[in-house]
């Protein structure tokens, strides 16, 4: 049975597209046929992060309007043949997406794909609403920062009242916390909310912590999802997240400060 995952946050710039690209690639690398959809109509960016911007011919809105078939619009990833990207349209018409149209496309994708990752735009407007409406699972990407935590909580409220599952009284969407741009050294100094703080406020199941990492910008510069950078801390954090989501037990990492040379020689544990 296919599952629809929405990657959402409310606030912009917290790492939704980075996360969507990474987990979609991670799921596909684990052998699951996966589609990742950019819901940010008008501000398409997933294609850049996935490195397929020059191969976009048709988009999400073309498919909804019947101007292209789903197969024509889906772009097969260059690194993994189980991963497909459905790019957003660059149209400025914000009503280009309709609930009916999105529902139809998702139904069609469900026949062929194991996981469908919906990359939500920021905000709580139509695109964000439609990205989460049909979801089975929600990945809430949050930064350890006041406005991001507040917006995440608002998104939780919307997920539990405005989604299809909520409206039809089905089992609620499974919600997971992905805490990104985490800086353990700043947490230790009391300058940043800790994982425990954020979990206590949002009471969410923690799927993983992604450390603030140079590798994320390097990855987007080159159009390779960061999870493919297996040596990087952020890449490993996303690999853990995918494994945990698929039911593997993995201890949480990147929560504590990296020990410097001094710490390695003289540090306690």
């Amino acid at each position, binding site marked *: 049975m296919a599952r629809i995952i929405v990657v959402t946050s409310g606030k912009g710039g917290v790492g939704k597209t980075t996360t969507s690209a990474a987990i979609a690639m991670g799921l596909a690398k684990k052998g699951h046929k996966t589609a990742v959809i950019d819901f940010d109509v008008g501000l398409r960016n997933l294609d850049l992060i996935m490195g397929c911007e020059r191969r976009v011919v048709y988009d999400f809105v073309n498919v909804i309007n019947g101007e292209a078939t789903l197969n024509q619009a889906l772009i097969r990833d260059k690194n993994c043949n189980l991963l497909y990207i459905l790019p957003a349209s660059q149209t400025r018409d914000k009503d280009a997406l309709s609930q009916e149209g999105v529902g139809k496309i998702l139904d069609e994708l469900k026949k062929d794909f194991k996981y469908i990752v919906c990359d939500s735009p920021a905000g709580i407007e139509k695109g964000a609403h439609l990205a989460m409406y049909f979801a089975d699972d929600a990945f809430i990407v949050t930064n350890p*920062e*006041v406005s991001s*935590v*507040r917006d995440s*909580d*608002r998104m939780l*409220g919307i997920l539990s*009242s405005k989604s299809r599952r909520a409206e039809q009284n089905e089992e609620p969407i499974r919600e997971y916390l992905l805490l990104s741009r985490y800086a353990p050294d700043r*947490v230790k*100094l*009391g*300058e*940043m*909310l*800790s994982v425990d*703080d954020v979990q*206590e*406020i*949002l009471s969410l199941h923690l799927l993983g912590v992604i450390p603030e990492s140079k590798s994320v910008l390097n990855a987007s510069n080159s159009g390779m999802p960061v999870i493919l950078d297996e040596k990087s801390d952020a890449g490993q954090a996303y690999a853990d997240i995918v494994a945990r989501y698929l039911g593997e037990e993995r201890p949480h990492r990147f929560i504590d400060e990296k020990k410097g040379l001094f710490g390695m020689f003289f540090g306690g544990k």
Partner: protein
Amino acid sequence: MSLLDYFRISKASSASLAKERLQILVAHERSSRNQPSYLPQLQKELLEVIRKYINVDQDAISVNFEQNDTQETLELNIVLPDHQPKTF
């Protein structure tokens, strides 16, 4: 206490301040989120009825909705003005 310690303590408080502010805010926003949608209208109409008999201010009436696992409580609180002459 050295100067360094002083800075350390003031830094340590910024994350805990953030947590405290968020806890209050999130609790408040969650409670208003769970309120039934008829609540503002109910409050308005109740105020109109009460004003037929007593001259109270808009903010003298509060309607609170609380919900726990077993029951829902609707609490109505009206603060009467001082020295209100009886009109009924």
